[in-house]
Each structure stands twice: as C-alpha cells, then as structure tokens.
C-alpha cells in the first residue's frame, strides 16, 4: 500500500483555493441526511462539531469530561499565532509558513503548513466575532506579542488564559447547536473502539461512564479529535484524563500511526517534589524573556542560591549560545537542562531542576515592571512551591507537553482508513518534529473551523457511504470484544494498582524515550515494556464493577493502551537514527553536541501499520518534498 498524501497540484499559494473549488459539495438538502461522529470536544472537536452542524449535518459529539467545556485545550496559556501583520513588522502568510516549517525541523508537509498559515487570519476574525475577549490596546485594536523566539509579534492572547477563552468560544458555538438540536452531546462517554465496515469507518463503541453501558453509534464518517498522548510518560502537563485510547483503537483497526516518537518537552515547568506527584505544571515560556537560567559550576553545590557568588554560577545557555542565550527554542533549552542535571549540577531537593533567576531583571527594571509582566505566573509559582520568586530564583525542569505524532492523515485530514478523519493534536500534524509556541491552538481551530467542514463534504459526496445502522453484525462483534476486555481487567484482581504500573511505564519512557535517546537505551526499553505489559495483565488490581462509575476501570483501560503505544514509540525512535526537533539521538550530533539531522535518509513521515498483537509493525514512508523551503541546519550559537 502506498501512502497518498493527496497534495493538490499547482503553486503553493493556490493549492488550497484550487482544491476547495475541485472538492465535491453535498447538496444543502442532503446534508441533513448525513450523520458525523466527532470524538473529543477540545478546540478541534468543538469547532468542527459546531461548524458541521451549522452546515446542516447531524453531529454526535462525545467527550469523557462532564462537560465539553473542560477539554484540555482550556489549559493553554500563551496565545495563538496568526499572520495578520497588525504590527506592521513584516509578517505574512509566507513568513508564518516558513517559520513553522523551519521550527518543525523540516519534517512537516509544506502544503499543509501553508494552508495553516493562510487560514490563521480567519481564525482570529471568527473568534473576535464570537466574543473572545482578546487583549487590546487603549485605542481598541487587538494587542500582539512575540512568542517562542519569533522575530515578529503575531501572537494574540487573552491574559494567560488564551486556550480557555478560545475553547469557550468554540464551546458556546457548540452549545448553540446543541440547543438547536443539530448536535447531540454525549458527555462522560468514552470511545472504546472503532467499527470498520467494508473498509470504511462507520461508527464507534462507547462506554457511558456513569452507568457503564456499552453502546454502538453508527455514522457516515468518524472524526477523532482526542488530543495527544503525552500521558504515556505518566508525568506530563496534560490533564489526568488525556489518553491515547481512541486513536490507538483506530490504529489497531487499520489507521496508520505517524511519527509516534515525536514528543515535545517543554523547558519551563515546575520540578517534581516527590513520588506523590500526579502531574506537572507549565510556566509560560515568556518567562525566559527576562529570566536567566543557571546552575552552580560545581556538582553537588547545595548552598542557598542567593549565597552562590556570581563567579561560581554557570549561565550555561548564555555561555553556549551567545546569540540566542536564554531564548533558544524549546528542544535546545530542555536538552541542556537535562545535561547539566546529569552532570550532578541540578538544584532543589531532587537535583532535577535549574534556576530561572529574575534578580538581574528586577535590578534593571524594578520589581514593579516584573510584577506587571509576570505577576500571575509568579503568583502561581508561589502557590505551588511556597517560594517567593521575587527573592529566590525559580526552579524549573523540562516536562512532556505535546505530541507532534498521531494518526497519519492526508491533505484532507483523512487517515488511510476511508471515512476516519483525525484533527488537532490527535493527527500527526503540521508541526513536523517540533511545535512552535502558540501554534497548537492555531492548528486545532484551523482543522475544526476551516478545513474539515470542507473536506468532510468532499468525502461524503465522493464515497457515498451506504446506509448502515447499529444492527449490522460488526457492531455486535466489536461490542463483545469491548465487554470482554472490561471483564478481563476486572477479573485479574492482582496485587498492584493501575497507577503503580502507569508510573513504572512512565519512568521507562522518560529515561529511554524522553529528551535524548540512544540505541542501547531504546533496545532496553523495548525489552522491558512487553514484560511490564504482561505483569499488568496478570497482576493489576481493578476494584468495583463494570456497570457503575468506576474511575479505576477507566484508568486501567487507558494504561493498557499506553503500554502498547509505548512500544511503538520506542520502535519509531529506534528506527529514526537521526536527531531532529524534539527527537535527539545521541548517535547523531555535531562536534559541538548539537542535534544533527540526516535529510538524505530521514526526510520522511514514518507511518506505522499495526499487524497484530506482539507482531512487528510495518513502516510506510511518506517522502517529504521541499519545493519552497531550503533545508538548513538550525544554529542558535
């Protein structure tokens, strides 16, 4: 099977327009005869559900939370990029496109990224019309800031709660359609499997998380908008409920998994305090604009940071990267923090932390200016750590934040399984091997508001899926599989909790498939993960019943899928023996210790095909052609 990315012909800037013209339309009177399932209600899922319902389709939308408003898009702080050029500083669609391809370390599809940059401007218009309260200047126009090392100010924001406000905008549009009866919402409902009939995705199996009822839902197309899988590491900045189950089940039913090993590790998170730690909290990377990152020069120096004289501090980013200093991209900052901690120079009780020091900025600008810029972040830091960052340097450490990998999709956001569309973080995405700051919100809304509503029509009009309902035997068969699996989890009654397994898996992944990877470590992980999986299926303890609200059972199902995904991630990481973006392979570095790409051998998307339990997955390659951007080695020296 060859992967067809379906990139339209023609010059880059005209591809999307031409494609929109060529796509087939569904007659307005026929739209109401089609039902589309959307799983997930974050930025991508909520915006897609609302937009498709507005067009006339019947939408069934599912989320595991008690309300669609709680999807984890809500936690995004920083902002959303758009090539509006409101600041007259030279931004353009072409520049946003170029920055995104380069930032992704040349591992994304040019045509997709260009379209993303094109529709970015529509997103801001749409959100303002919905009443999203973006920050404004005194004259009443929208404010912008520069973010994530971009040289132009193209980031729109709503205080430190941009994700919340954008999600509430999409949620309100969704609730409007729920009120009008065009969307049927299923909260506290988890998708547990995908149903494929005659090679087309035709429905899902769900579990009602209150009653435990297993149900079938049929549709003409299925859209997965279920977010990322960073929780495979146990500790991450993701919400506790974020999981891989929906896309993993789809993968096992035939959808290819793209670049599973591409994980973004964010450099500025609050360090772990102990084994009780349940999640990690991100501090906006805007802090690096004024904070200076350092560790003691001597390993094991346990003095109070304020007692360590200037000469005995190592401002390692400024030393190694004089031109970018503390503002190097996320992957570089994270990797260097790990290196100094590995040398025994980490700070804090655990030794896994580096200082982010505002002393000099406060001296230069005054405490008031710093308070104005970062007051809410300092407040949050103090709430969590009980330390005053105006007086003592913050301690930060990298944490898993975003997964660039996900199900493989073509230009129409459809997977290789006809009828199965994947949007937002759940697809392998437009971010290549590394996502730039303020680009996740942009992609989620681009997919949901402005891409999928067009491409789904083209699919329905061309594929003309035959009428199918849940009485089809395939639904019954998959329902039975789902029930069996639940009963199996409940009947093991072993000695270990789900969380203890999840933590152990997370540790393996963090140590061997985290910030830097090497062949020996990955091989070790690939040996250990199947053993752990077997232990899990023999010794996990899940109490309670199947037909009631059972949070341990929910977790157990998700962790079981993480156990399988982990192996695929390590397999992918082992295959990709180059360093690129968030993927750093020890064996592939420049003499100065920087990431070294191998464009001759690895300028492709790795799309993995599931071949059965315990079988080696099959690798399919989608070669990436770069027509418009010249591949160069990133340098921040």
């Amino acid at each position: 099977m060859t992967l067809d990315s379906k990139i339209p012909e023609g010059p880059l800037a005209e591809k999307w327009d031409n494609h929109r013209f060529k796509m087939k339309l569904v007659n307005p009177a026929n739209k109401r005869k089609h039902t589309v399932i959307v799983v997930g209600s974050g930025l991508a899922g909520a915006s897609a559900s609302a937009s498709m319902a507005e067009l006339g389709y019947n939408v069934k939308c599912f989320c595991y939370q008690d309300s669609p408003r709680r999807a984890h898009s809500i936690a995004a702080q920083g902002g959303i990029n758009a090539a509006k050029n409101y600041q007259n500083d030279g931004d353009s669609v072409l520049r946003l496109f170029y920055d995104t391809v380069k930032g992704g370390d040349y591992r994304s599809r040019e045509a997709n990224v260009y379209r993303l940059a094109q529709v970015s401007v529509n997103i801001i218009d749409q959100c303002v019309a919905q009443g999203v309260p973006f920050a404004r200047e005194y004259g009443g126009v929208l404010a912008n800031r520069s973010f994530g090392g971009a040289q132009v100010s193209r980031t729109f924001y709503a205080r430190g709660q941009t994700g919340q406000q954008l999600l509430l905008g999409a949620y309100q549009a969704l609730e409007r359609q729920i009120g009008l009866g065009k969307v049927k919402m299923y909260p506290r409902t988890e998708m547990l499997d995908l149903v494929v009939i005659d090679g087309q995705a035709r429905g899902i199996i769900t579990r009602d998380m209150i009653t435990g009822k297993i149900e079938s839902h049929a549709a003409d197309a299925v859209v997965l908008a279920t977010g990322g899988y960073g929780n495979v590491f146990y500790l991450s900045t993701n919400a506790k409920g974020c999981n891989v189950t929906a896309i993993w089940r789809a993968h096992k039913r035939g959808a290819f998994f793209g670049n599973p090993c591409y994980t973004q590790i964010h450099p500025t998170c609050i360090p772990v305090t102990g084994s009780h730690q349940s999640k990690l909290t991100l501090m906006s990377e805007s802090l690096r604009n004024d904070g200076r990152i350092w560790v003691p020069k001597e390993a094991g120096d346990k003095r109070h940071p304020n007692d360590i004289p200037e000469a005995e501090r190592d401002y390692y980013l400024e030393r190694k990267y004089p031109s970018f200093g503390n503002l190097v991209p996320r992957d570089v900052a994270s990797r260097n923090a790990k290196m100094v901690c590995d040398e025994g120079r980490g700070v804090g009780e655990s030794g896994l932390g580096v200082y982010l020091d505002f002393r000099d900025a406060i001296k230069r600008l005054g405490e008031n200016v710093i308070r104005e810029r970062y007051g809410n972040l300092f407040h949050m830091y103090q709430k969590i750590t009980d330390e005053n960052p105006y007086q003592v340097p913050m301690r930060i450490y990298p944490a898993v934040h975003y997964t660039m990998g996900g199900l493989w999709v073509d230009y129409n956001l459809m997977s290789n399984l006809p009828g199965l569309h994947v949007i937002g973080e759940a697809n392998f995405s437009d971010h290549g091997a590394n996502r730039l700051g303020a680009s996740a919100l942009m992609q989620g809304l681009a997919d949901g508001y402005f891409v999928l509503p067009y491409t789904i029509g083209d699919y329905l009009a061309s594929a003309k899926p035959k009428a199918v309902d849940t009485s089809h035997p395939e639904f019954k068969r998959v329902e039975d599989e789902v029930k069996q699996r639940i009963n199996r989890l409940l009947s093991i009654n072993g000695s270990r909790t789900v969380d203890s397994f999840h933590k152990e898996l997370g540790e393996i992944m963090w140590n061997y498939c985290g910030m830097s990877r090497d062949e020996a470590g990955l091989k070790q992980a690939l040996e250990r993960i199947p053993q752990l999986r077997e232990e899990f299926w023999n010794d996990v303890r899940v109490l309670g019943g199947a037909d009631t609200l059972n949070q341990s059972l929910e977790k157990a199902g998700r962790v079981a899928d993480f156990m399988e995904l982990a192996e695929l991630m390590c397999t992918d990481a082992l295959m990709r023996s180059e360093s690129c973006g968030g993927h750093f392979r020890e064996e592939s570095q420049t003499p100065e210790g920087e990431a070294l790409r191998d464009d001759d051998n690895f300028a492709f998307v790795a799309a993995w095909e599931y071949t059965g339990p315990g079988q080696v997955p099959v690798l399919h390659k989608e070669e990436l052609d770069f027509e418009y951007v010249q591949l160069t080695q990133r340098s921040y020296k």
Partner: protein
Amino acid sequence: MDLTLKVWRQPNANTPGQIVTYAAKNVSPNMSFLEMLDVVNEGLIAKGEEPIAFDHDCREGICGACSMVINGLPHGPQRGTTACQLHMRAFKDGDEIYIEPWRAKPFPVIKDLIVDRSAFDRIIAAGGFISVGTGSPPDANALPIGKEVADLAMDAAACIGCGACVAACPNGSAMLFTSAKVAHLNMLPQGQPERDERTLKMVSQMDAEGFGNCTNYAECQAVCPKEIDIQFIAKMNRDLIMAAARHGTKKGTGKTEAL
C-alpha cells in the same frame, strides 16, 4: 503530617450516603489536596476497598472539574484557589478534614464527591453565545473595543464553570455563574443584537433548573476560585429588567431564532 479525613461516600444517586473516616498518614506539605487523596486511594485499593471517586482533570486550576467542599468551604480554605491547586501546607498535623460534594438540588450526586453539573451547560445552550456561524466575519480589527471594556469582559469570562458559587450559596443560586456569561457577552459590541433575548433565556433556564435567587450573601464571590465579582449579578439584574420591560415577559421573547 498525619490527618483524619471524614469523607462523604455514596455509591450512586439512589443510595443514601454517609461520612466515612480515613486516616491519611505521612502527608507531605508539598502535595496538592488531590494528590493527598490519590495516596489515600492507593492505600484503599491495597486494602481491597473501592477508592474515593472525585472529579478532576487538568489539576492546574483551569478546567473547573474539581469540586469538593473542604471543611465547609467549596475548594477549601485558600481564597482564589481550586481544590487541585490547594496544597497540604494549608493544613497542620493532626487536623480533621471534612470532604463533601457540592450540595445543591440542581447538582445531584452521582457518586461520592462527583455531582452532575449539566444544568450549567443547558444554561449556556439557552443563550450563552453570539449567533455567528463559521464563515467570513469582518476583519478582527474592524470593530475597535476599548481596553477597559475588553478587560472587564475578560474578568467575567474567566469563570471556569466549577459550580463553587452554587455550593456556597444558602439559596443554591447560580446567579454568579449565569451573570458572568451574560455580562461577558452583553458588554461587548458583538453581543448587542441578542442582548435582551440572551438575558431572558439564560435567566429563564436558570430558574427552570431549580437554582435559587440571589439575596446578596456574597458567599459566591468569596469562594470563587477565579474571584469573579458580584457586580456582574447587578449588571445582569439591570439587563433583565430592561429586557423584561422591552419584551413584556420574563419567560422568553417569543422570537424565533435563525439557524
């Protein structure tokens, strides 16, 4: 530190619940309140007892999922803080801590500390939006909005929909929640065309769900993790009077809504 927990346990909506006592030993002051419960739950599972069920998700104070009354206060003793961001250093060795679900008729208990807050979604579905479909709205800067207005709208929009306001109110009123959304949208120029209809419909839905009225206790503002100001309730009441005066009835406007 060692603590004694008095936790509301209730298997489902149809079975009566009760307070059950648990010991929480060796609690670190650096744990969040929910992490303390995680550790207690791990111990319960080890003993073969079902863990305490509670809603939670982002654990960074923004999703609004966590919802528990701690020693009589929704989200616990620390102002402007959700339960997930409350840390155990707010307590001391030997403390006895009562943990209960939100208590309000429109929020029925589902299990233990988990309640059904879908009434909030229905209030939003009744009118908490601006009716603008995805398409080609005017350029975002075509409509200047003064910074003061935009900032105040943002203050109201910061609501996370957790329901602490209802849990704290002796009347079980949802006026802080409803007014935060009414005020956010009614203040902005984009929200003007539907201003009256929105106010009437949302208030009418709020009443239909069985939430009580506001009698100015202001407990809601005191427990709100996002410190939403009760001035928005006053704004909503003004808008409601104006809308009712213009449209005669409080129960909806009789207008048909365009798709």
